[in-house]
């Protein structure tokens, strides 16, 4: 268990490590800032998808321990989304808040991307065990459904920024629809159980996303 988490930690960090390595070695090409912005954005979305795959995978395989890795995966998605946002603010615009604000308010792909990032902040902040307990499972779960909105926003952000080649963002959109569709389909097949009054500690156990 300890080892597997450590291994996953290294795997999740390796894209960032690779970027740092390439940046130092001059391997990011003529426009390294663009390369960093694109790579961190890609990995934010990919890790968000991996996080969203945990629950369907658990249902399909019945391999329950996988749920233990979900928080780490989600936090790494947030880590890459933060790097993506920072590379935009620091590397691309170097804190030119005037033009950043103009971008966020007038360019729809920036608006939606920024929204997707901001939505992840409360999720990262409430990811601790203490916060789950404080919020209560049901409220915590409702809050964390924002991850669906954030993932959709991320894909739309990608779709709206490309010039002609919509293939990559369309592939991302298909993967996301599969991940979200799996949830809807399950919800359709198993109508919501009648809400039963439960004591808070049990509520957490039964929580599903």
């Amino acid at each position, binding site marked *: 268990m300890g080892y597997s988490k450590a291994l996953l930690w290294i795997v999740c960090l390796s894209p960032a490590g690779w970027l740092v390595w390439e940046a130092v070695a001059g391997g990011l090409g*003529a426009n390294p800032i*663009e390369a960093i912005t694109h790579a961190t954005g890609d990995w934010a979305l990919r890790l968000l998808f991996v996080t969203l795959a945990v629950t369907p995978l658990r249902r399909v395989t019945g391999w329950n321990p996988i749920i233990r890795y979900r928080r780490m995966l989600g936090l790494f998605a947030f880590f890459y989304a933060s790097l993506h946002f920072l590379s935009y603010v620091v590397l*691309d615009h170097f804190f030119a808040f005037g*033009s950043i604000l103009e*971008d966020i308010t007038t*360019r729809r792909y920036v608006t939606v991307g920024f929204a997707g990032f901001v939505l992840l902040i409360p999720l990262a902040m409430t990811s601790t065990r203490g916060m789950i307990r404080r919020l209560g499972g049901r409220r915590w779960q409702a809050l964390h459904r924002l991850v669906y909105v954030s993932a959709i926003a991320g894909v739309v952000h990608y779709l709206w920024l490309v010039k*002609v080649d919509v293939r990559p963002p369309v592939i991302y959109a298909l993967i996301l629809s599969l991940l979200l569709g799996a949830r809807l389909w399950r919800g359709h097949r198993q109508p919501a159980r009648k809400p039963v009054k439960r004591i808070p500690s049990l509520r957490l156990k039964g929580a599903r996303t």
Partner: protein
Amino acid sequence: MLITHKRDIPFSEVTPRHLYVNRREFLMTGSAVTLGVFAGHLAGGDVNGTGAEARNELLFTRNAAFSTDEKVNSLDDVTSYNNFYEFGLGKGDPARYAHEMTVRPWTVRVEGEMRAPAAEYALDDILKPHALEERIYRLRCVEAWSMVVPWIGFPLRDLIKRFEPTSNARWVRFTTLYRPNELRGQRRTTLRWPYVEGLRMDEALHPLTLIAVGLYGETLPNQNGAPLRLVVPWKYGFKSIKSIVKIEFVKTQPKPTWNLSAPREYGFYANVNPQVDHPRWSQASERRIGRFFRQKTRMFNGYADEVGHLYAGMDLTRQF
């Protein structure tokens, strides 16, 4: 000041790279750089490799009056970071795949409203009468990055005059090579192939408008639009069409490829204009490749004094 230098060897008879490299090093280490002219070597017209590396040294003069003194981007920047969708959509794709394009033999069809006979002209016939000059121009991409490139070429106006366009010729239409078996990007319809661009006649006749056949003192690498391309420095880069196979003098305004693809985003004129944003991003500033801080984009890419009068009275927010 323009130092003219008569070229009397055909374009195809220039020295293979391996023969001149040593001599060039000698020149560069000596004071010959200030001479401004690299005299060509008359030996052997046969180009050994046919890949992207087969670049040949060119004879040219420096046109300082038409050049910026800004820091020039490295050959590596200029040849590794390209938009040339005929070879793929990634910036590195042209450098990776453009060697698959055969650039010799090459012909250019010239036709339309002109007195000269419409015909398929061999590249040498197109280029032969023109003395080459180096012009260091700013290049501003519509994607808000820019470079400074030392082009080798000659004014398009000199070429146009040879074909004697009539008064019906109001516009010039250019077409890029269409050959999907060599230009792998054309096997997909990302854009409508072949790539087409156009200029109004007065834009085409402007002394800044260049037909480039080389950069950094040698023939164009394929990824930069070999063997001949347009360079219009006050317009976004996509107007500067590459690997031209057809030039037409026409009565009506041509329909450029990007304009057809997304008319709201890419206008016919595509003049660099920091006040008119692309619908999806700002054009107020740009990243000069190789620099960390963004810089302000200048009206007409800094060529307003030269070309501003061409657009007097036009509403540039509508005719963008």
